[in-house]
């Protein structure tokens, strides 16, 4: 079982609940704005504490309210592409990309720096500061940074937003590749039906 | 009519508070007393600040004011005098020091606390005495120069310095120190606290308080606080 997630969390006036059990492949979280998709990814990544439930990925328990288990985020090894880019503003693009790479064990890495740069077409941006990037450029760097951290699973929050069709296609192909060749579990949020159609092994509807 | 404003050296604080109280007890308006370093007060007067009386800790600052013709002619008088003593922490095993050179030996590797000999009146008197008595060359770089006499006293009280030079009035007031030596009055310029009225003062009560301070009743109060009075 790639993802075995059952979570509940109160946020203000809203109750966020999600139940995902999925085998290999890409699981797409689908649902209207504000239903709690990002909150679910945050809870799987360990950034938001659920009120109750459990999170298991690849059979490893990352969170369980009954046993009071909660693996800290840095040991969950999630490759999280946030809805906002969250680049480190004090590091150049290259240093942003290298941030997670340097922390990962070399043996665990499954993509190298040059491949990421080529794939995302960000070679000319490496010396730039994040504040000077366009929306799509920042998004691509954020994707690269997550991939280079040698994650064991991916959390993608509308990763293809702000990107043009050609680049969308390129990155979608990479996601397919990761899904099929590396067999990394992927939990992804998208509002684009075509995108969901193309990538999803399974679609989970929220709300 | 506002009561007169008296600018006075910080070391006179207790004595003058008492004197002001006694003056008020006679049915007069209690003068307002402002205590600070003589240097600061003199500068305020020189700048034209509206004060009535000035009590300085030494002659030099009174001279500086007088040189600018800011004193009411004929109003300058000596209010009190003081003596210079050597003190040690109460628990000291030192006996009485008879000669200035004994200070050098008694210091060990500690420092001699005193008011800044370069600038503060008490320090200047102390240096003059040590020079006259021939101990200065051996002590010049063994001094802990404090901001004022009270700070020098505190250094000895706390055992930070084994010996200190302060006024007799300060030594008398502290239970944590003991007088281990006295400087002969002739070894330094006379320690005098002059008082004078400010020329610009229009307060009729100012002269009344000045006269009270110089009267036998006023002098008795100063004597009670350990000051020497003429």
């Amino acid at each position: 079982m790639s993802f075995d997630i059952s979570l509940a969390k109160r946020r203000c006036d809203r109750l966020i609940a999600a139940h995902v059990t999925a085998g290999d492949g890409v699981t797409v979280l689908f649902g209207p704005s504000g239903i709690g998709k990002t909150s679910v990814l945050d809870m799987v990544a360990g950034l938001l504490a659920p009120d109750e439930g459990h999170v298991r990925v690849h059979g490893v328990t990352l969170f369980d309210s009954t046993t009071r288990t909660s693996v800290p985020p840095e040991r969950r090894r999630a490759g999280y592409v946030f809805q906002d880019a969250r680049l480190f503003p004090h590091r150049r693009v290259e240093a942003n990309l290298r941030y997670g790479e340097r922390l990962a064990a070399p043996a665990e890495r499954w993509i190298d720096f040059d491949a990421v740069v080529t794939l995302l077409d960000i070679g000319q941006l490496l010396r730039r500061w994040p504040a000077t990037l366009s929306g799509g450029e920042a998004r691509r760097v954020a994707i690269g940074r997550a991939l280079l951290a040698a994650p064991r699973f991916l959390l993608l929050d509308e990763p293809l937003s702000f990107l043009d069709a050609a680049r969308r296609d390129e990155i979608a192909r990479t996601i397919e590749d990761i899904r099929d060749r590396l067999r990394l579990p992927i939990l992804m949020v998208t509002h684009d039906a075509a995108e969901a159609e193309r990538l999803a092994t399974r679609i989970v509807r929220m709300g | 009519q506002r009561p007169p404003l008296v600018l006075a050296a910080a070391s006179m604080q207790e004595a003058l508070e008492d004197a002001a109280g006694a003056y008020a007890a006679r049915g007069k308006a209690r003068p307002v007393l402002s205590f600070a370093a003589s240097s600061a007060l003199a500068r305020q007067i020189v700048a034209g600040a509206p004060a009535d009386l000035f009590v300085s800790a030494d002659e030099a600052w009174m001279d500086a004011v007088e040189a600018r013709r800011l004193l009411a002619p004929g109003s300058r008088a000596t209010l009190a005098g003081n003596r210079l003593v050597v003190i040690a922490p109460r628990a000291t095993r030192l006996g009485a020091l008879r000669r200035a050179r004994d200070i050098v030996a008694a210091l060990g590797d500690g420092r001699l606390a005193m008011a800044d000999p370069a600038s503060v009146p008490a320090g200047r008197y102390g240096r003059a005495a040590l020079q006259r008595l021939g101990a200065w060359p051996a002590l010049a770089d063994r001094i802990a120069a404090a901001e004022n006499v009270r700070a020098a006293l505190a250094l000895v009280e706390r055992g930070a310095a084994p010996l200190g030079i302060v006024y007799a009035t300060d030594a008398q007031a502290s239970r944590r120190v003991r007088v281990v030596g006295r400087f002969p009055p002739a070894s330094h310029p006379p320690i005098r606290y002059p008082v004078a009225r400010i020329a610009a003062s229009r307060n009729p009560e100012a002269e009344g308080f000045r006269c009270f301070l110089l009267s036998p009743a006023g002098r008795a109060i100063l004597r009670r606080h350990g000051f020497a009075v003429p």
Partner: protein
Amino acid sequence: MLSGEEWAIVRLSLLVGGVAVAAVLPLAFALAWLLARRRFPGRVLLDALIHLPLVVPPVVTGWLLLLAFAPDGPIGAMLDRWLGVSVLFRWTGAAIAAAVMALPLMVRAIRLSIEGVDRRLVDAARTLGASRMRAFATVTLPLAIPGVLAGTVLGFARALGEFGATITFVSNVPGETRTLPIAIYSALQTPGGEAAVLRLAAISVALSLVALVVSEALARRMGRSAHVL
């Protein structure tokens, strides 16, 4: 231009101020982080304690330092027993006074910057494999650099101007504790010392000007906009 004695005073002031600020910076940062990011009982009390040297007059701070570091004071006795040293009348004591006086200014400035650091960036660092400590060192700390610089400038300036606590604590010993402000005070106590006061004050101002220019240059070099899309 400067006399030999003036040079010595300037060197000593720089030593005292520099050592004070450098030594207290890690502590200031730790306190700032605690106050900015943690909620714990006694937080406001700690905050008040740090502000203390600002609130009580410097001479009182100096007096309290004297009580603590005197041979029979709690810290003085320990220093003597374990290290066989005393800071009384030494430049190290002057540096301690300067550090204590600079601390509240540094903590406030750094804290303000830490509070401005976007926690979402720290979250991002964590998911990329950084421990809490590493995220702090690689994200929070560098993004708080403007506060660190501002705090350092404020603290250094305060150290350059510190007078009351220093003279009360460690007196005015040439070559050890006679820093610029103490030399200035001495001159101010002397009738006719105004020229010397202005000359020494001008030197202080020149030093702080240099410190400001350096800090502005550093800020420009290190200061990246703290905003991300």
